């Protein structure tokens, strides 16, 4: 990268000798040299490029803007250049340089950005309602034309998003039962109230823990899968292709997934109940010397069947929330790959939040109803 710039003064006139290479890599060096010129006193500048061996487009852009600056300051200049190639480069860059003022994106103030964000969120909410409306009308259509239910897709989804989740749900629930019992046992032992471990476990697991844990695992596992699958289908135009062929994506993709989860969620919660109670039973046996028989006897007396029903009853509601949010997020994917990741994250966060909100609501309702 050898290139240098010599500056010669002759009264109010000035000659710039560019030598060697003038490229991207020495523009800034020359620029600092040129900055030291004392412009007001100048009347004329000669720019001598005869000794230049190489000029790239960036450097010629720089030269063009330099001469323009001279023009603006009413300083005349002559370009001394024998090589046609260099002149061509200069002309080319001049032709394609940005003539108009740069489009500067208008700055948004803080208030404005808050407003924009809120409005966007509001539009997102409207979108979600539109989605629900479409879903509802498809459901009505389905009830009227019973034969168009997609049993095959539904069976496939039941296997994919519920049956295959059995293992992880069973394991998680078992561990949670173990942990809760272990912590409880420690406290109960100090009061000698060992047998009440059964009451504690039974009610908390059946009513709250199992449904919530199942919902969280399903949201993280199947809800996110829905978003990613449908998002990818959107990007590859598969959804558009379906529409043009007259296959309603709501009928083929959306409803089978939602129904599959709603049907299977109570079953999953039931499995989770069993596993968590087994976990608790083991701790009770080892830690508190409560035999399995004692545990089950107490369970029959202390735990009302309604607690089980309450837990299972929540299942379809949680499933509906998880599936609709997952699918809605998938449909909201834009035509770029980043948006799949973004929407998948959102889908999991939003569906877990929605499940917990819904659970809180149920809690209040059931308590007030005395259930």
């Amino acid at each position: 990268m050898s290139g240098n710039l010599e500056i010669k003064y002759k009264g109010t006139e000035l000659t710039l000798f560019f030598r060697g290479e003038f490229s991207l890599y020495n523009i800034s060096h020359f620029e600092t040299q040129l900055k030291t010129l004392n412009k007001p006193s100048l009347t004329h500048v000669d720019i001598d490029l005869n000794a230049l061996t190489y000029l790239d487009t960036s450097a010629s852009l720089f030269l063009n803007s330099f001469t323009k600056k001279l023009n603006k300051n009413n300083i005349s200049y002559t370009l001394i250049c024998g090589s046609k190639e260099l002149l061509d480069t200069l002309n080319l860059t001049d032709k394609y340089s940005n003539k108009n003022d740069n489009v500067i994106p208008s700055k948004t103030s803080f208030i404005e950005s808050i407003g924009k964000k809120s409005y966007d969120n509001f539009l997102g909410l409207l979108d979600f309602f539109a989605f629900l409306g479409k879903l509802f009308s498809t459901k009505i259509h389905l009830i009227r034309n019973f034969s168009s239910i997609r049993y095959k897709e539904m069976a496939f989804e039941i296997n994919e998003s519920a049956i295959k989740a059995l293992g992880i749900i069973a394991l998680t629930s078992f561990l949670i039962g173990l942990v809760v019992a272990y912590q409880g046992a420690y406290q109960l032992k100090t009061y000698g109230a060992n047998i009440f471990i059964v009451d504690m476990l039974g009610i908390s697991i059946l009513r709250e823990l199992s449904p919530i844990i199942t919902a969280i695992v399903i949201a993280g596992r199947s809800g996110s899968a829905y978003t990613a699958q449908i998002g990818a289908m959107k990007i590859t135009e598969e959804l558009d292709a379906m529409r043009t062929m007259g296959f309603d994506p709501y009928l083929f993709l959306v409803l089978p997934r939602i129904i599959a989860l709603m049907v299977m969620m109570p079953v999953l919660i039931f499995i989770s109940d069993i596993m968590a109670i087994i976990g608790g039973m083991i701790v009770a046996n080892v830690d508190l010397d409560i035999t399995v028989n004692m545990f089950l006897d107490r369970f029959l007396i202390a735990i009302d069947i309604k607690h089980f029903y309450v837990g299972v009853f929540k299942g379809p509601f949680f499933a509906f929330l998880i599936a609709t949010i997952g699918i809605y997020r998938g449909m909201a994917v834009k035509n770029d790959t980043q948006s799949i990741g973004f929407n998948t994250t959102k889908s999991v966060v939003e569906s877990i939040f929605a499940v917990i909100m819904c659970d809180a609501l149920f809690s209040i309702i059931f308590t007030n109803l005395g259930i």
Partner: protein
Amino acid sequence: MSLISVKNLETKFDNRLIHEGLNLDIKEGEIYGLLGPSGCGKTTLLREMVMLQKYSRGTIKVLGYDLNTISHNQAQSLRRKWGVLFQAGALFSSLSVAENIALGLQEYTDLNKKMIQEIVAFKINLVGLKQSDGLLFPSQISGGMKKKAALARALALDPKLLFLDEPTSGLDPISAREFDSLILKLHELLGLTIVMVSHDLKSIYDTLDKIAVIDNKKIIYEGSLNNIKNEKSEFIRTFFKANL
């Protein structure tokens, strides 16, 4: 008889006007080309014709149905009468090539399995794929094969009308010419009306009967290829300058 007519179409994305006062008319049996510079709204126009996108004003009539007032059932039956070939194929990734082609037949007809298999095999031959390719999944085949498979799927229900978005882009010149002659053959054999977007000059000259050039939100030329060289528009002059 005109199969598609577009009148006074206006399309807006937010505040950006894409089409304004756009008119065109596609007659039965034509191979009709949509041309124009990048971003002038050809794909958008095609998507509007197949009801994937809403427009803000004007009317589009396809096979006699007005898309503004079409009912759900009419729309469903309309969708069986056309085939659409997307730029990237858009094959269903969870189904094999043969299953992709068979899908429409399974859903919309009461043909038995054997008959469907036979039809699928025929379509596979028709577009120039090998029978063994039918077993492969979209992720296992090349770009050119995807286009052929997608064409076979679009042709599965013997549509009257075929929409193609840049059918030869991304193909090597030999495959591109093969695709052109395939389209001509289909046009001849099945009497298809074909609407296609293309940038491929060779394929434009070889296949199209009539073209429409979109520029500045409007159709600036509609007609046969013979008179196009006399047009004054910058795009047309530059585009057709290369004498083939």
